């Protein structure tokens, strides 16, 4: 009986092991998202015609839309990766 008591009590003093760290690599984003947005085009004051002005405006709008697509890409990338990270933490 003494042995039994000691055995039961000894279960309370079982040791603990150290935790094993798991390193997770920060996820990479698509290379295309790292391309910086170009400067908007300006017009030469001396040689301006209506068509040059409109073409420059068109170029600048296109630049905006191309940048906007990349920005949307970053938002999507973040949201999806946040979801993936949360699934790991569950």
């Amino acid at each position, binding site marked *: 009986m003494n*042995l039994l008591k*000691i*055995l039961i009590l*000894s*279960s309370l*003093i*079982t*040791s*603990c*092991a*150290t*935790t*094993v760290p*798991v390193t*997770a*690599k920060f*996820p*990479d*984003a*698509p*290379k*295309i*998202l790292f391309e910086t947005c170009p*400067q*908007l*085009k*300006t*017009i030469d*004051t001396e040689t*301006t*015609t*209506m*068509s040059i*002005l*409109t*073409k*420059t*405006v*068109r*170029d*600048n*709008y*296109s630049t905006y*839309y*191309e940048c906007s*697509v*990349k920005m949307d*890409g970053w938002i*999507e*990338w973040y949201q*999806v*990766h946040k979801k*993936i*990270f949360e*699934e*790991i933490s569950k």
Partner: protein
Amino acid sequence: MWILHLLPDNFLYNVVLTIIFGGVFLYIVSLVLNLLLKVYPYKNALRTSSVLIILIGIYFYGGYSTEMIWRERVKEVEAKLAIAEEKSAKVNTQIQVKIVKQTKTIRERGQNVTRYIDREVTKYDNTCPIPAPVVKAHNAAATNSIVKE
């Protein structure tokens, strides 16, 4: 305890069991000797040491169990990470493809507008001169700078 991580599971388990059963065996031996030999000089010493060995064994068993739980968790997390990395790569490809496709569409539409300008707007190049302040305002807006008057 870090050294535990280097040892295989079975080896650890066998060591722990050997210690516990070794202690139990010694305890039984001490009881048998006590029954057979009425005057047994090392009775207490043998019994105490066997109980100590059992205690040490149980202590190690606790450590072993915790270690196994952690190893299991590490395996789980590593598996989840592998899946996450796979998903991440897939999502990156999808985003990349989407951006390339949308950029292509934007450029195509831009070219369409350019063709329209070349066809229609050029007609007004000579009749509709652009005043300098318009260009100035446009350039200032494009470079996000203050208009110099």
